[in-house]
């Protein structure tokens, strides 16, 4: 009756393998494999997508993301500095901005920006500027919090050393603190680049024309002219071409910066005696 602890653990492991096997069997038995093959793996449809899916859609996705990321990074840095400001209204404004744009779906921001701004301000941006501003506005809210955390993670002694050498507060921030903050937050920033890559799929709402298609819009358009769902698979793989290397980059940077922090007396003391 009473099983040993080791025996129980073994039984539990068998049970886990059993559930996995059962799930696979159910999937194989009940899925319509012929239909799946016809729907997702239509080679003719796939072949017809090249080279446009790469030279237009993938390229546009990268361009939109990079533009949005660049603008978001600058705005995010400004918001982070506002959040750390000693001037109350700056802090409040930054907090309101961050809470608002983090709490609202990106799609709504794009609609409001794409259609609202031309109406309200009588200005018309080209598609690249629109995408850059719209994606950047959303990305900045996330990046601001990351950058603020990075700035606060730089030891206070760094500022004191800079100030005692005669640097002004601003000079110390630009020359000493911000470069070190960005080293610290490189891994999370890479993650935000991945999120932004996926968010760029939502800009279809702005109304794109053929040469402006990014991956998702391109996939949907091809889908409407195709009897199979193959475009969705191809487009999905294209996203992975972008995001997987970024994911690896992020983990690599995390490993690298994890081992080499700003030198502290304790750390260097240990290194010496080792």
């Amino acid at each position: 009756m009473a099983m040993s602890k080791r025996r129980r653990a073994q039984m539990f492991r068998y049970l886990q393998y059993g559930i996995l096997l059962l799930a696979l069997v159910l999937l194989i038995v009940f899925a319509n494999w012929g239909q799946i093959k016809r729907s997702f793996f239509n080679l003719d449809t796939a072949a017809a997508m090249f080279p446009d899916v790469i030279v237009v859609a993938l390229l546009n996705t990268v361009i939109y993301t990079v533009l949005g990321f660049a603008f978001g990074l600058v705005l995010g840095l400004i918001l982070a500095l506002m959040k750390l400001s000693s001037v109350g209204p700056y802090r409040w404004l930054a907090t309101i901005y961050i809470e608002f744009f983090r709490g609202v779906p990106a799609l709504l921001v794009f609609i409001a920006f794409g259609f609202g701004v031309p109406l309200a301000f009588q200005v018309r941006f080209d598609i690249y500027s629109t995408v850059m501003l719209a994606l950047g506005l959303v990305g900045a809210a996330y990046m601001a919090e990351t950058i603020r955390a990075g700035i606060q993670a730089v030891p206070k002694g760094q500022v004191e050393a800079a100030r005692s050498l005669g640097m002004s507060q601003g000079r110390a921030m630009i020359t000493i603190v911000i470069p070190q903050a960005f080293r610290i937050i490189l891994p999370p920033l890479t993650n935000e680049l991945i999120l932004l890559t996926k968010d760029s799929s939502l800009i279809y709402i702005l109304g794109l024309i053929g040469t402006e298609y990014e991956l998702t819009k391109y996939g949907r358009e091809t889908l409407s002219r195709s009897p199979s769902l193959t475009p969705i698979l191809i487009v999905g793989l294209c996203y992975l071409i972008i995001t997987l290397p970024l994911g690896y980059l992020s983990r690599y940077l995390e490993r690298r910066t994890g081992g080499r922090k700003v030198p502290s007396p304790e750390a260097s003391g240990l290194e010496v005696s080792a």
Partner: protein
Amino acid sequence: MSETETETDSDVVVDISGLTKSFGSLNVLLGIDMLVNRGEVVCIIGPSGSGKSTLLRCVNLLETPNAGSVIVNGVELTHPDADIDAARRRIGMVFQSFNLFGHLRVLENLTVAQRKVLKRGRQEATEIALANLERVGLSDKAHALPSELSGGQQQRCAIARALSMDPEVMLFDEPTSALDPELVGDVLGVMRQLADEGMTMLVVTHEMQFAREVADKVLFMDGGYVVEEGPAEQVIADPQHERTKTFLSRVLNPAHQEG
């Protein structure tokens, strides 16, 4: 340029009077008067919490005093219109935790303020930096990152960084307290050499041997006051006040050896 003229006609480099400082309800400094003459080495000793580091940090206004005046190189830093940044260029500071700039190589640590603050050219700044690295025995580490240096090397690099600004006075805030015992000697050696060269130095330290041998004057602080001050030999070997005696016997007697 106009500031430098006033410096030369006075032998007093640091002149502090009636200095008080509190953090919230905690009164750390309760009225300090202190004079440091040109070329003098003054060591500040005392138990932890006595306010000695705070006093040092008030000299270059890293801490803002509540009352009293701080005059360094003839400039009253506590005056509302004082250009603190300009004054700090001539006040070198060395921290307990080194505070080297982690993203910059050793040479850049020494040139960055020369270039951005003193507006020296790249070549001039580099020459001055290399000369100071040699002074502290780190010529071969110019291109290392701070994290690749031992604690003692980092602290010597920090001293060279401060020296590269041609300071009128150097402040040392427990420069050897974060070091492994076997590395303390190198740093004290560099400080001894600076003292011999005539540098005006204000040193907060627990190294009694160093204070005794190098300091011209020793201040013993306790509870926010300067309890006793005088020539090093007198204060350390023959203290007059009860509190100084108690402190010194605690520090010196428990088989406290120095590198």
